């Protein structure tokens, strides 16, 4: 790990990981008008973090993005989605009826836009958190005790 034989990989990873994150956010906030959406954006963001852990090691990545943060993010995402549903119910509409979010008259689309963006943010959090949690659970698992550990 300390040798220089991974230096090209690391330099390229350092260049690409921010680009992948930016691309993920682009897909997220552009998802309303283009192909792709929060599910894909969430996976792209998770893949950026996974790439980081593949090139720079699992422990630094776990320090930067702790497992607690990942699974909390997943739960918060689901809560955001469900929360939008209850928000519209509090405003007098049906569950997940975005039209009722701001109580606007028929024909106004602000509620639709805001509702979709918030809901997709929830999906992004849930997918990113769940994917990172799955990766940590698989990659961070300690195998059987090896001979040299005795």
């Amino acid at each position, binding site marked *: 790990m300390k040798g220089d034989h991974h230096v090209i990989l690391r330099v390229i990873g350092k260049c690409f990981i921010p680009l992948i994150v930016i691309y993920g956010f682009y897909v997220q906030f552009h998802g309303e008008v283009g192909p792709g959406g929060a599910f894909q954006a969430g996976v792209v963001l998770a893949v950026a973090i996974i790439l980081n852990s593949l090139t720079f090691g*699992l422990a630094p990545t776990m320090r930067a993005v702790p497992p607690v943060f990942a699974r909390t993010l997943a739960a918060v995402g689901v809560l955001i989605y469900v929360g939008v549903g209850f928000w519209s119910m509090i405003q007098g509409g049906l569950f997940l009826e975005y039209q009722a979010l701001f109580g606007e008259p028929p024909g106004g689309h602000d509620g639709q836009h805001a509702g979709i963006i918030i809901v997709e943010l929830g999906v992004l959090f849930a997918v990113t958190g769940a994917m990172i949690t799955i990766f940590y659970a698989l990659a961070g698992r300690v195998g059987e005790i090896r001979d040299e550990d005795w």
Partner: protein
Amino acid sequence: MRELFTTDAGPALINIALLAILFIVAIAIARLRSLFAIVMLSGVYSVVSAAWYIAVDAVDVGYTEAAVGAGMSTAVLLGAMLLTARTAKPDKPFKRLGPLLICGAVAVMLIYASVDLPGLGDPNSPANTGAGMTYVHVNWYDTGVPNVVTSVLASYRGFDTMGETVVVFVAGLAVAMLLGFGERSLAETLRNTKKRSGKGKEGDA
């Protein structure tokens, strides 16, 4: 690029080439025994099928396949491979006969059914004349969202998407509960890193 796809022979040739690559990769996956090669080839399979989805104008599906199939599952499979042996056990030849017969029968049925499928992009196909067109017509007035796919997913089928989100969350939770959340192994990794001065087992993949 556009001209290449609008000519008659172009799309057919591209489809045939991509599907042939898929077929070869699938055969190679079925015959290989080295798990690392199988994981890498499944990533290749995902990339090629993503290219094929884009060639048949299913950009959303192709994008998902590239992100999830090639990116995410390859990384997860690599992580899973580290927990097990590096090669698969060779199975006895006569044991493959049953699955082979079942696959052959399913292939024959699918090929038989594909004769009745409408052509690609056929405006008179049921998908383009039924409920799908209704959404396309009603969408702008209802939601004002330019992308019909997004408005169908988030507005018309908000419950469905909520269910999907919960499924993703529960999947992550289930895997983490079965395999451990990762902190304990993090502590282990840190201890190993300290003890062996950076010669931890992480990052070898």
